[in-house]
């Protein structure tokens, strides 16, 4: 693997993790008695930027290296299901994340006054954030398993 590809892989993991951290920060903030809506907007916006950047960097690594060099190694090994089940699911579910976080940012941006008063909206927004962070964590765990399956 070239240094450029390694950089893109590390950037993909780092940015994805950063997105998870921003979403967890959002989830912890939304239930505060005096929620700071400026920070909710900032956290949701930074999570969106992180996932878009992770999408691009991971996409470059996946389309230019993974399919040619990593996938055949996993498929020949003892844990071929790791590619055919986990990687296939991961690469497609990842596509949900930018749209989920964009919606989270939009809800926070457009409804911040109502978000303070409307408990139903607060709960629904927290549910959206929880779904996004759960999907991102599952994708991260799948990534760890995929890395572990190489050469086994």
């Amino acid at each position, binding site marked *: 693997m070239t240094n450029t590809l390694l950089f893109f892989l590390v950037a993909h993991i780092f940015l994805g993790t950063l997105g998870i951290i921003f979403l967890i920060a959002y989830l912890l903030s939304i239930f505060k008695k005096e929620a700071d809506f400026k920070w909710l907007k900032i956290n949701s916006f930074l999570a969106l930027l992180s996932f878009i950047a992770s*999408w691009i960097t991971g*996409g470059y690594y*996946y*389309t230019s290296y993974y*399919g040619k060099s990593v996938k055949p190694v996993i498929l020949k090994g003892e844990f071929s*299901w790791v590619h*055919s*089940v986990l990687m*296939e*699911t991961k*690469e*497609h*579910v990842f*596509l*949900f994340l930018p*749209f*989920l976080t*964009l*919606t989270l940012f*939009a*809800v926070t941006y*457009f*409804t911040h006054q*109502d978000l303070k008063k*409307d408990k*139903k*909206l607060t*709960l*629904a*927004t927290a*549910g*959206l954030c929880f*779904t*996004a962070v759960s*999907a991102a964590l*599952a994708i991260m765990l799948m990534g760890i398993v995929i890395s572990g399956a190489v050469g086994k």
Partner: protein
Amino acid sequence: MQDKQSILSAIILSAILTIVVIVLLTVCGELDAGFKGWLTKTFSHHWIGKSIISTLVFLVSVPVFYVLNLKKISTAVLVWILVAIANLSFGVLLAFFFLETYF
């Protein structure tokens, strides 16, 4: 505020539609080799094709849903529908690839 509500409803509905389209593109691509081949040939990689198509679906559907003016549905209900669709779609894709691998 009414206008903001219309924009927000359009964004949430577009996100729901986009996730459904991603699932359909993925399942159709696996079941129809010709379709997956077309995605690869047109966009250099099937995954890039799915990324571009899903982004286009989102960008086109936001103004369409905005014009349709569906602000009567409450934002909280729309968000819960998005949550349900996202979780269901995750389960559908995982189950689909599991079944494709073992059966």
